[in-house]
């Protein structure tokens, strides 16, 4: 096929196919805008700073986890362990500043460690995922299932299954604090998504992630350290899950290893799928993931605000995912 032929066929695309191509490219954005429009018209008090903040704070943890998930999925993998890693991160932090692990001499230091150590721990657990995937060539869905199951158990063992209740202004700034009126977790979400977006576009690592997912064999033959790239994306995914775990426990003033991050892996995967990143790898649409997460959140909010119960919202969420994947498939067909 020459370029000229390609152009010729592009001109004769049937309108149905073109619809799917356009829908595949802009469908998520269109759905997002439609939801906003619907709410402006029908939901009382939608256009208020508070509504905005409520939605953004609720979506922040999903976006943070889904950003790591996007990178993992871009390499052709998947990370089921994120929810459990959130529980571990969330269990570890209060233990540190409450002095359960080692004596606290200075609270600022303890709070700093409560931010850093849990994230390092979950990053290392992510590395463990990566090692299973690369060194032992275990399928990602099975490899990360290990920590999906064991991770929550670890968190429960660490806390003896007890609820840790705390009040620590320094630590809880991450969830309750505001910078220039914007919730700190929202800023964190934007910063993380922006860094990931720039990394995918502008760094060697970002391009290598896409290449590994696009054609692993070819990537290896061009000298890309395929194993190292995969280890890194699982580490990043683990670290971001840890960050999300900190936010959740800080928001609740309590850490419950049974509940922190429960079902998060599915929300994150859903956001990635709705956002237009192919689950087969080779693409990483961070902006799409961000909007995908916002769409899912807005659907839920819209239904709740209009009196539809949460259980029914789940069904709509599932339908939305189905629709997104269907449109992508049709758009991707030659």
């Amino acid at each position: 096929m020459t370029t000229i032929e390609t152009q010729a066929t592009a001109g004769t695309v049937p309108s149905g196919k073109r619809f799917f191509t356009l829908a595949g490219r802009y469908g998520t954005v269109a759905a997002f805008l439609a939801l906003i429009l619907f709410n402006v018209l029908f939901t009382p008090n939608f256009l208020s700073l508070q509504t905005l903040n409520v939605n953004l704070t609720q979506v922040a943890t999903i976006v943070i986890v889904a950003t790591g998930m996007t990178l993992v999925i871009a390499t052709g993998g998947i990370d089921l362990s994120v929810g459990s890693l959130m529980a571990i991160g969330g269990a570890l932090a209060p233990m540190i500043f409450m002095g359960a692990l080692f004596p606290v001499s200075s609270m600022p230091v303890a709070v700093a460690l409560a931010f850093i150590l849990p994230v390092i721990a979950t990053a290392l657990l992510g590395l463990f995922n990566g090692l299973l995937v690369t060194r032992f060539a275990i399928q990602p869905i099975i490899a990360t299932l290990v920590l999906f199951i064991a991770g929550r158990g670890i968190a429960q063992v660490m806390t003896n299954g007890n609820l840790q209740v705390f009040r620590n202004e320094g630590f809880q700034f991450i969830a309750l604090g505001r910078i220039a009126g914007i919730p700190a977790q929202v800023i964190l979400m934007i910063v993380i998504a922006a860094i990931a977006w720039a990394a995918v576009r502008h760094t060697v690592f970002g391009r290598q992630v896409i290449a590994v997912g696009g054609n692993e064999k070819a990537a290896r033959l061009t000298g890309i350290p395929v194993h190292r790239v995969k280890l890194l994306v699982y580490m990043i995914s683990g670290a971001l899950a840890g960050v999300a775990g900190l936010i959740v426990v800080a928001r609740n003033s309590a850490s419950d290893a049974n509940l922190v991050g429960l079902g998060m892996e599915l929300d994150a995967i859903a956001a990635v799928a709705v956002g237009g990143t192919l689950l087969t790898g080779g693409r990483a649409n961070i902006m799409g993931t961000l909007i995908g997460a916002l769409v899912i959140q807005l659907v839920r909010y819209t239904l709740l605000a209009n009196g539809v119960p949460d259980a029914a919202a789940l069904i709509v969420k599932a339908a939305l995912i189905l629709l997104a994947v269907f449109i992508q498939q049709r758009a991707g067909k030659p």
Partner: protein
Amino acid sequence: MLLSMHGICKSFNGIPALRSASLEVGEAEVMALVGQNGAGKSTLIKILTGAYRRDEGSIAFAGEDVSFNMPAESQARGIATIYQEINLAPQRSVAENIYLSREPRRFGLIDRRAMREGAVAVLRTFNLEIDVDQPVAHFSAATRQMVAIARAVTQKARLVIMDEPTSSLDEREVAILFETIRTLKRGGVSVVFIGHRLDELYRICDSVTIMRDGKTVATGAMAEMPKLALVRHMLGKELAAFEAIAKDADEGAQRPVRLSVENAGAGVRVRNVSLTVREGEISGLAGLLGSGRTETANLIFGADRLERGEIRYKGQARSYRQPAEAIADGIGLVSEDRKVDGIIPDMSIRENMTLALLPKLARSGIVDRARQDEIVASYIAALGIKCTSPDQPIKELSGGNQQKVLLGRWLCTDPKLLIVDEPTRGIDIGAKAEILRLLRRLADEGLGVLMISSELEELLAAADRVTVLSDGTSVAVLPRRELSEAALFAAMAHQVE
């Protein structure tokens, strides 16, 4: 005549794969079906079994005109196919595999005893006594093949098609397989044997059908077909001759050696290969399909591990564990299968071209986009790549332009040794000549080129020296002045004793 296919034509998206091909197989005859990659063997077989529909032509099987719509129909009529990657269910037992989907039943339930006894009996006819309750995955490739053949026999197959059955077998296993084929033949079953190792074909086949460019170009009794003639029919002659751009290797005899491979070996595919590439020369690597050319390239490049022998690069012994190490040393490999090993289909031309160079294009991990654009633009111009923009996904380009992007991928890393595996496969004739001229120009600038090619014209036109492989062994080195079609044919048909 058990099978006769005549005037078979088949096109894919307007590109003809078969142009009036034919195949005739007699009762209890072992027919060799040979041809280069892309000659149309697989397509012909798939049309016979019903996996593809033919555009034109007729097929008669056991005296009746037939037209199968799916493989199940041809199987029911007695045509069994045994593929390279054997289509058995690896975790099911031998007996279950033999009777898969035709399980003997009693009162509507599977009669396991009858199944087991039947399996033992049929395997015994091939002198194979194994535990039929074991999963087939527990057995060697040869045994698995035998199970597949046993399955064909219980289906009352009258024609068994074997697609490169010996490619992963060692010599002892090949002997067992051949004994099985003889047993089949004694039972009145005909065999179509697709293979590349000439010695094996002469050992087991009665007749031969040779295909080239989608046509059947010669048929005859195996014993009356000299090896030389067989090779000549297979490779044939391209219509367009290339301008001769090679230089006599003697001219460069004083040039330093870039790469020397001595008695290299790994696995069963590469047995004993020696070759040399000097600075500024195009060193050709010839051989029939399956002779170990690509595998040799993978060894040099570190994509596979060297097990025996030595590889010296710029005078130093090297054994790369990863392509990345070879690349760091200044070696590039344009692989044989563009789609599988070369392009990242969804990525743009720019990204594909700079993939190997990327680490050097970056400052603290961030790609220098300006330099990247500059380099890509210069190679698009220098290589004459036709595209709408560097942002165009590579999958939208023609084969020739994709190949140029992949060449650019290595050239921008400023390599000292470039291995090109079938550099002009699937490319139109004009682009072929262009790519050869390009390689020549690069060699003149000092690059060492190792060119693997199945196309004799290409080797004759461009190579300064040709090493010929046969069955994983380098059997001849032909300098430019001894290089001729006849000499290459003779070397390729060479029998390794």
